[in-house]
């Protein structure tokens, strides 16, 4: 069983909600990344999403754009990202790691070579932001064959037909984009999207994570009600940015904030 499936099975067994945390690989520089990943886990993260920096992050808001720029300035190539994950795996062999990025850097090295090396480094899944199911067939076949799950986005305006098409390719979990916007954008209107998430969960037969715009423990708890997991990114990246090159301080602050998210969604889960 993949680490992602094992993670969601374990959550389901104890009726818990998952906490997926995003940081950009190589932000502020590649050597800091494994320590920051461990801090996320200590705080209570179930799954780590690791951003693969791209020069033109079209779907990201300013916080993650700046993180990408910092990472690229410090030479965060795909090879460096593999190294970060391999280093993390030396001490943590259970927490799933999902790479999140844009197609061009993956495609440039070749889907097969990327998937093989990512898998060898200990990567469990990949989410390619700008690869909708219509264009995903070849890439999907290759990464699945290498044992890497492909996570897809579902949006509030995705039709039922599209959700079904996405679920033909998706494995691991599906990522429900809570707002029509970019990462870190306006706050989620929970009531409006709950119905759409419920529908997605029915169609997907995969766990559904909800993200984009969840910035506080309160929002995390509210969003956790309708989904299997919540996904937090920009709020964490802001903490890293705030601490500049002081990795130790950033790790400490991340752990504290992630724990506050953990407590919030666990409270909700227990109440439910």
């Amino acid at each position, binding site marked *: 069983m993949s680490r992602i499936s094992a993670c969601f099975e374990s959550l389901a067994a104890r009726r818990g909600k998952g906490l997926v945390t995003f940081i950009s690989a190589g932000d502020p520089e590649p050597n800091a990344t494994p320590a920051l990943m461990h801090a996320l886990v200590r705080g209570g993260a179930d799954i780590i999403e690791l951003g693969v920096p791209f*020069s033109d992050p079209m779907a990201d808001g300013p916080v993650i754009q700046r993180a990408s720029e910092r990472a690229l300035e410090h030479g965060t190539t795909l090879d460096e990202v593999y190294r970060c994950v391999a280093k993390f795996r030396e001490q943590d062999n259970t927490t799933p790691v999902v790479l999140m990025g844009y197609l061009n850097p993956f495609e440039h090295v070749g889907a097969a070579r990327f998937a093989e090396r990512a898998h060898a480094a200990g990567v469990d899944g990949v989410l390619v932001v700008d690869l909708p199911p219509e264009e995903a067939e070849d890439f999907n076949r290759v990464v699945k064959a290498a044992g890497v799950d492909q996570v897809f986005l579902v949006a509030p305006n995705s039709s039922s037909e599209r959700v079904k098409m996405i679920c033909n390719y998706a494995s691991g979990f599906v990522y429900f984009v809570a707002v029509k*916007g970019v990462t870190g954008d306006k706050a989620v209107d929970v009531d409006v999207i709950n119905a759409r998430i419920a529908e997605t969960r029915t169609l997907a037969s995969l766990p559904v994570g909800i993200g984009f715009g969840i910035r506080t423990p309160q929002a995390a708890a509210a969003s956790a009600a309708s989904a299997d997991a919540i996904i937090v990114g920009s709020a964490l990246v802001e903490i890293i940015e705030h601490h500049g090159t002081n990795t130790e301080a950033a790790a400490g602050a991340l752990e504290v904030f992630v724990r506050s998210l953990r407590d919030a969604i666990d409270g909700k889960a227990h109440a439910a």
Partner: protein
Amino acid sequence: MNAKPDSTALTGVGHETSLPDARGHFGPYGGRFVAETLMGPLAELEAAYHRYLGDAEFLAELDDDLTHYVGRPSPLYYARRWSDELGGARIYLKREDLNHTGAHKVNNTVGQALLAKRMGKMRVIAETGAGQHGVATATIAARLGMRCCVYMGVDDIKRQSMNVFRMKMLGAEVVGVSSGSRTLKDALNEAMRDWVSNVDDTFYIIGTVACPHPYPAMVRDFQAIIGREARAQSLQREGRLPDALVACVGGGSNAIGLFYPFINDHDVKLIGVEAGGDGVATGRHSAPLSAGSPGVLHGNRTYLMQDECGQIEETHSISAGLDYPGVGPEHSWLKDSGRAQYETITDTEALAAFRHLTRTEGIIPALESSHALAHAAKLARDMKRDQFIVVNLSGRGDKDMHTVATIDGITL
């Protein structure tokens, strides 16, 4: 094809080639590579576009605007003195510089704005490099009473301050983009982010034949009036089709607009001219077709300027409108299929052509178009007098006075 100039807006659309396919592919290029949130809006746009493509009332309104607002048909002007000085083939200029707002860009913004109006979206956004597309968008927004927001790299805002002022005069908000390379590609990223966040009431008027399907096909179809007119005018003036067409290529909208109606005229050479900047060998250029490789950026697969890790490289050109690391996917297809060829012209060569045309014809061309002129001049010298070339004079050079003055050491 009728021999007299035919300004009917979209006549002939869909007959030239069967591309793109239903999913927007030109061979391996094109497609729709965007985040899921944009898939619905792009499908909605595609449906609206196909619907109005066959709507007589829409086409009549577009045709009327192109005639009376834009000023079409644009002349096909024989540049006699310039041709004489060069020797060799005769050169005709397709005078898109004489359009309202001074460039070919307005052909497309009029079409997309009319579409936006019919879709009930009264806020339009645009990206711009040289500012021509931004001005053309702000212009039509003013006329239709739409709110308008234009994204522009802060480096481009500096070198195109006149166009920034024009957009503001027209009532548009101009948003400076300071991420990445602070030029056209970053303005496009930011406009796309605006669109995804405001998609319910906002229409994104893209200015070039790149980006996700249906934009490459739609912008081509709105710009193809250039080629349809040029084809009919050539038949009328010379009794035959040109030996070659030459157009500059940044994203490639003026080039595809000229080329497309000639695609099945296999004796007509199609030549796109990319910005060679300091020279392709220096790496400081904007010539993805000549020196790049295929990849995915801004929603489509196409030739790109990228490094060994697939990160997009910064580009350089004297002309802001050509300063872009990608190119429309149909050009990538035309290159691979051999139907069109792509050449480069350096900043220095473009400037020389700019000055030469200005002095011999009394026409000040845009620096973008000057790349096409420079290549046409090289080409003409090796051709015979009874042959003729049509160059797309895609825009006028007023906006470039500041750039040229700076190069000459003059403060305006």
